[in-house]
């Protein structure tokens, strides 16, 4: 389809529980990006993929966060043991090209609330 589909829209987890978020990029888009929006405004880049290969993961808190993009499956972002500070909206974007991001399309986000 022509939209980036993120599921679920809302997710509530108790502190220490696992959270898993999904993103289906637009068909034909080779690049997938995950961003975390905290404090309502600030966007933090987490990780990017080119097909199933990690391209840049400089923003990932690696001790608890992991992500995958496998062929014929939605991409996923997993938080093993959630903390209160992980509460945020997580956005996924896909792009046909990585060279210049004029083709970015964002999903509508998953709101994670850690209680």
């Amino acid at each position, binding site marked *: 389809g022509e939209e980036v589909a993120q599921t679920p829209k809302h997710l509530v987890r108790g502190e220490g529980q696992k959270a898993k978020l999904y993103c289906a990029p637009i068909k034909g888009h080779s690049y997938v990006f995950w961003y975390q929006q905290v404090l309502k405004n600030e*966007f933090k880049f987490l990780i990017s993929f080119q097909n199933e290969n990690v391209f840049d993961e400089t923003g990932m808190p690696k001790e608890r966060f992991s992500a995958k993009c496998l062929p014929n499956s939605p991409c996923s972002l997993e938080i093993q043991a959630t903390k209160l500070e992980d509460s945020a909206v997580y956005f996924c974007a896909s792009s046909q090209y990585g060279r210049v991001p004029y083709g970015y399309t*964002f999903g509508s986000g998953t709101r994670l609330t850690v209680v």
Partner: protein
Amino acid sequence: AQSVTQPDIHITVSEGASLELRCNYSYGATPYLFWYVQSPGQGLQLLLKYFSGDTLVQGIKGFEAEFKRSQSSFNLRKPSVHWSDAAEYFCAVPTAMNSGGSNYKLTFGKGTLLTVNP
């Protein structure tokens, strides 16, 4: 590294009034620049982008932006605001992900919240 600054956290305008949202960039060469809008509970929608050429860029929903190198600015404008324009607006610049500079991620400003009064 490239970055953008949005000096105004919150702006309120009356419906029908003109609008200008500020964005300043820090980059030596000619940057690529973007404006996105985020409506409540929604994702980010691209309003317009600047790559090169004409410094006045037209976007969707009646928005435009002007690239001014002398002021390091890329301000977003709309001549007459509608109530449906109430949203958060983000300026963004690509940041290279690798040393070759051939692949990019987006770096966002902190956003400007637009409130429209009837």
